[in-house]
C-alpha cells in the first residue's frame, strides 16, 4: 500500500459545481496536512494547511481532516475555470522536517465554462 493515495483523475466539472478532492494515507504519524495547487509547468502553490483533525475554511476552499479514517478532503465551492489545475495533497509528521513529507500523485481538475 502506498503511503499516500490520491486519485489522479482527470476530473472534469462544469463551472459553479462543488468539487471534492480526496487523499487517504496509511501512516498514522502524519499530523500536518497540506493542499497545493499546481498549474501546468509551474511550482506547487500552498492552498491550505491544517494540523490534526478538523475543518478549515478559506474563501471557496474547505479542507477536512479525519485522522481516525486517515482521510483528507479539499472542497471547492462555486468552482471557476481558473481553478483548473492539478491539486496535490501533502502530509508529514514532524514540524520542519520535510524529508518525511509525502505528496499524493495529484488530481488533475478541469472546470469547464
Amino acid at each position, binding site marked *: 500500500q502506498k503511503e499516500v493515495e490520491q486519485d489522479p483523475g482527470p476530473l472534469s466539472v462544469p463551472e459553479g459545481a462543488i468539487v471534492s478532492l480526496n487523499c487517504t494515507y496509511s501512516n498514522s504519524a502524519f499530523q*500536518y496536512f*497540506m493542499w497545493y495547487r499546481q498549474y501546468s509547468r509551474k511550482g506547487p502553490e500552498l492552498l491550505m494547511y491544517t494540523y490534526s483533525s478538523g475543518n478549515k475554511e478559506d474563501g471557496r476552499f474547505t479542507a477536512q481532516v479525519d485522522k481516525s479514517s486517515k482521510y483528507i478532503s479539499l472542497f471547492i465551492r462555486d468552482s471557476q475555470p481558473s481553478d483548473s489545475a492539478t491539486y496535490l495533497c501533502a502530509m508529514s509528521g514532524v514540524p520542519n522536517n520535510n524529508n518525511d513529507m509525502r505528496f*499524493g500523485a495529484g488530481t488533475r481538475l478541469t472546470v469547464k465554462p
Partner: protein
Amino acid sequence: EPEVTQTPSHQVTQMGQEVILRCVPISNHLYFYWYRQILGQKVEFLVSFYNNEISEKSEIFDDQFSVERPDGSNFTLKIRSTKLEDSAMYFCASGGQGSGNTIYFGEGSWLTVV
C-alpha cells in the same frame, strides 16, 4: 508578496555535463529544500538544508548531487555528470522558523538532458 525565485527556467544539457540550478529563497526563511518532479509523476523530496548543512536527504540524492548556499541569498543544486533520467522539473522550496510544514515553492527549473 515574497516568493522563491529559480533560474534558469529551462535548461537543455548534454548527457555527462554538469548543471547548476539556482534558487533565491524567501529572505527570512531558514529551511531550504530541493524537490524533483519527473514529467507526469509525483513530486519527490531530494534534500533539505538548515543552518548551512544538509539536514536530510533522500535515496535519490546520491553523490551525483550536491547543494550549496554560497552566500546569504542563493541556494544551489549541482548535478554532476547528468544522465537522461535526470530530466525533470526541479523545485526549490523554503520554509520559515515556526511555520510548521508550510513550505513555499519556486516556479521550477525544467532540466532536459539529451
